[in-house]
């Protein structure tokens, strides 16, 4: 049986923790390492919606749809801000080299982290809503 809950906050950094807390509550039956990676992927996607899609402006909705099924958890992070160039999704990690200051990058790790935490990641814009849809296959049924 598939069940869905939608979590919505205002685009303010201090509200992102509420999404984390709600997600961790909803996922409480999963193993802790599984919750950690799903939470991290969600936080990175929400950070991007707040920072990039809305350019750090508060007063806009960011919402997360959690779809719980017996064998997967789908997380959709949605905003109505500026769409992302989907090429960003494929960017590779810059290997940090202690001898080369140019590799000491302060940015561009979020989407790499998301791709590594989740099994499938897609981005689309539909009717003015940007959706980063992530899927995680599960061994343990989160609703059992």
């Amino acid at each position, binding site marked *: 049986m598939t069940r869905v809950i939608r979590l919505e906050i205002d685009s303010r950094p201090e509200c992102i923790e509420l999404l984390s807390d709600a997600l961790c509550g909803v996922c409480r039956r999963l193993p802790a390492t599984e919750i950690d990676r799903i939470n991290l992927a969600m936080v990175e996607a929400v950070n991007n919606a707040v920072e990039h899609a809305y350019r750090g402006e508060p007063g806009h909705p960011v919402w997360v749809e959690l779809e719980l099924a017996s064998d997967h958890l789908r997380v959709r992070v949605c905003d109505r801000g500026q769409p992302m160039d989907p090429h960003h999704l494929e960017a590779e990690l810059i290997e940090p*080299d202690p001898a080369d*200051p140019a590799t000491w990058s302060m940015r561009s790790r979020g989407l790499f982290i998301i791709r590594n935490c989740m099994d499938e990641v897609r981005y689309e814009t539909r009717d003015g809503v940007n959706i980063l849809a992530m899927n995680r296959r599960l061994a343990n049924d989160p609703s059992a």
Partner: protein
Amino acid sequence: MILTHRNHHGIDIIALSGRLVIADVPEVRQKLLATVEQGNGKLILDLAEVNFMDSSGLSVLVSAFKAARAKNGDVALLHLNPTVRSLIELTRLQQIFAIFDDEAAALTRLSS
């Protein structure tokens, strides 16, 4: 977010706690950069009490590292819990940060 700050023979030791995420980044970045600026650029970050970090938290660590290196200093990370350690390793930052489970070892490294 900042728990404590002490100085041991010219090495700054800062312990953070809780979540190191976007909401806390401005405060923590400012504190770390001010510490590097006022000190020798030798910094130990004790992350024992940090239970969650995102990429904005990583960026703060990296900006402290850049500032420290600009003074010929260094940053060591101490007491990573498994969640934080796996994030550091996923993003290969263990290649630029010295990581320790033991404060004495971190102090020895930064004293040299």
